[in-house]
């Protein structure tokens, strides 16, 4: 009898960790970045990785898989084993726009959001001697003079192209799109007057704004944003367009609920970490945290906005 009790007790002890709490994570977690080294996703991911071990108990390994506008990395994670060891650092382009304009084999339902870290608006940037003083004037001009504004963008369907497409769809404005190789060349095109306007990001625009080489008429975020609180939103100026480039941690949707919960808790704490906050502030970016469910609502709304714009373009 004693023997039986002993056996029963030892089995119970063995089973306990499984019942109460499974051991996770027990090895490093990979965070897949859909863009090239040195980009804003990469920089944010490295900051996350620097604080992650304290909260995950395991290192967060940053792996870059650039290509096809981020679709390669998203496909990779969508098809990965949902064991909580492969995560995606997703974004607007690869996760909201691409699946709707191209056959990439994934959409929203392949991913479970863990946390939104932050987002950046695009800045409506015009050449220093442009006649428009507000975004409303700019839109009005582009409406009355279709195709007259030379608008540099950084790639088809990209963060610089899409918000302008949204404005066109909403207001009937028409611009002359000039594709460039990226944010740098687009900025130089506006600063040198080779183009009249573009949607660009704060990190590169602000020094040129200060030097008086360009002007910024508005931001695309839903509300004014740190550290450029003085620039009004498009919405404030009566243009009903919002568009942001978000950075959120996503897991494959096959990841077990327990692990998703654990990850969500860990990332929530990471975002509140003082050294994390300090490093992100140095990048000149705000922290705009949303938990998984809250972000899912945000993402769904964005998905619908994009699909409406695309429908309007196709008409």
């Amino acid at each position, binding site marked *: 009898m004693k023997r039986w009790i002993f056996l029963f007790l030892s089995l119970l002890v063995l089973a306990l960790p499984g019942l109460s709490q499974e051991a996770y994570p027990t090895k490093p977690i990979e965070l897949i970045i859909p863009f090239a080294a040195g980009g804003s996703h990469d920089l944010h991911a490295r900051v996350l990785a620097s604080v992650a071990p304290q909260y995950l108990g395991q290192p967060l390994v940053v792996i870059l898989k*650039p290509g096809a506008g981020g679709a390669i990395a998203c496909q990779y994670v969508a098809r990965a084993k949902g064991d909580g060891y492969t995560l995606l650092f997703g974004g607007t382009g690869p996760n909201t726009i691409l699946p709707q304009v191209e056959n990439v084999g994934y959409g929203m339902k392949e991913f479970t959001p863990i946390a939104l870290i932050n987002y950046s608006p695009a800045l409506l940037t015009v050449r220093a001697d442009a006649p428009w003083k507000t975004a409303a004037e700019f839109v009005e001009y582009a409406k009355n003079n279709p195709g007259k504004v030379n608008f540099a963008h950084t790639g088809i369907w990209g963060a610089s192209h899409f918000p302008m497409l949204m404005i066109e769809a909403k207001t009937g404005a028409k611009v002359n799109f000039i594709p460039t190789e990226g944010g740098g060349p687009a900025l130089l095109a506006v600063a040198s007057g080779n183009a009249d306007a573009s949607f660009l990001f704060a990190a590169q625009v602000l020094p040129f704004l200060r030097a008086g080489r360009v002007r910024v008429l508005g931001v695309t975020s839903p509300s004014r944003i740190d550290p450029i609180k003085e620039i009004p939103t498009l919405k404030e100026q009566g243009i009903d367009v919002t568009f942001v480039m978000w950075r959120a941690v996503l897991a494959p949707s096959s990841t077990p609920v327990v692990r998703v919960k654990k990850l969500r808790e860990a990332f929530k704490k990471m975002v509140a970490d003082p050294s994390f906050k300090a490093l992100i502030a140095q990048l000149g970016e705000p922290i705009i945290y949303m938990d998984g469910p809250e972000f899912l609502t945000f993402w769904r709304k964005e998905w619908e906005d994009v699909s409406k714009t695309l429908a309007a373009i196709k008409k």
Partner: protein
Amino acid sequence: MFENLAYGFLIALKPTNLIYAVIGVFLGTIVGVLPGIGPPTTIALLLPLTYGIELTPAIIMLAGIFYGAMYGGSTTSILVNLPGEAASVVTTFDGYQMAKQGRAGAALAIAAIGSFVAGTISVVGLTALSQPLSEVALRFGPPEYFGLTLLGLTLVSYLASGSMVRGLLMALLGLFLGLIGMDPVQGTRRFTFGILELNDGLDFVPITMGLFGIGEVLYNLAVKEEFAEVLKATIDWGRNLREVLQTKWAILRGTLVGFFVGILPGGGAIVSSLLSYAVEKRVARDPSRFGKGAPEGVAGPESANNAAATSSMIPLLLLGVPGNASTALILAALLIHGVRPGPFLLQDHPDLFWGVVASMYIGNVLLLVMNLPLVNVFVQLLRIPYRFLAVLIVLLSIVGSYSVNNSIFDVWILLLFGILGFLFRILKFDVGPLIIAFVLGPIVELSLRQSLIMSRGSLGIFLIRPAAAIFLLAAVVILMTQVIQAFWRVLVKAPMHQRG
């Protein structure tokens, strides 16, 4: 200007900064020598480490890796026909031939000394002219890029070392390969066959490593070439230095081309070395020596890529616009430290700018001291039996191709182009024109279409912009002289067969 430079030296000579400069150029040399691990990969790896240190030493180190790699990059190009980093592809054209003739020592010495001269002259240019030059870079728009790259493309006709027809065929193939991927204006897919990996086009690294490195390995294994007997000749320093002196004008021309192209955000070290090679062949009295071990073919491009690496600090620091993957990562390091490079950098962070510039003077001297003695060491590598060397080359090529995008697809591209490279060697098709067309073709296309969109279809935009008009005029003159020469040969002189 001299106060600024003196101030810069005060900063650069601080012990910590000096140590970081040494670490940077040392790592750069290693990274340059090792094929497959380029400066972008290394800088990306070290980027997180720079969070913890001050900004100026961090940038001094990262810049050191970048221009230091330009020194070492020629080593494996010369010794085993495998570019040590992307900008040294051109060095294989003549450098490897020199090595085969027992002149590896001379080629390596030319590369080291040319790099030093170019690096130093460019830092002087950086010291004196960075502000006005950043304005030049800013004004260089699509029509100017079109003029410059079209001029480069017409120089392709000088690049083929064998028959002209074969050279032009290869250039067409290069143009075609450059077309693969997403159309930049409409976004339609060209020749991607639904393969997502092809959307961004083919990558430069696996193509060149395949065509040169793997192709050469296959060829050597097929024809059983051995290096051992040509080793003795390479250690003769008197002869090596004489060869270096003969290339002094090529070094200066390469420096000039490289410095200018490096200032342009859309330029970069690869374009500069390709253009420099074309220029050297154009000005040479006997262009037929090229591709067969002409020392100018090493001196020009190697100087050009160093000059370009140095002058690319101008668009990076004063415009905040990086021209290539390495400077894009240095930009990231700046952003992490809360510094946004741009027109105010000189005012806001003079210690950073002048400290980095002064460290480059020191770095170039260090690199020369480090690289010249290494010439003898590296030449000894040729003593390794080729069957071992071959395995190493293949291994490094695979690692290098994979690491560009962490993608196995690029390894398949490498192997495909390895086989193509082998076939081209056997059929005596020169890959030089293919490479230059592959690099310049997409820039020509995009800048032409951008210009025409800007002008709403009017070709007049190329005439009203003086710089663009001058480049295009030069291209037309070059083409016309070619045609006239060809007619002259056919009609006036007795028809004779061309080589090849």
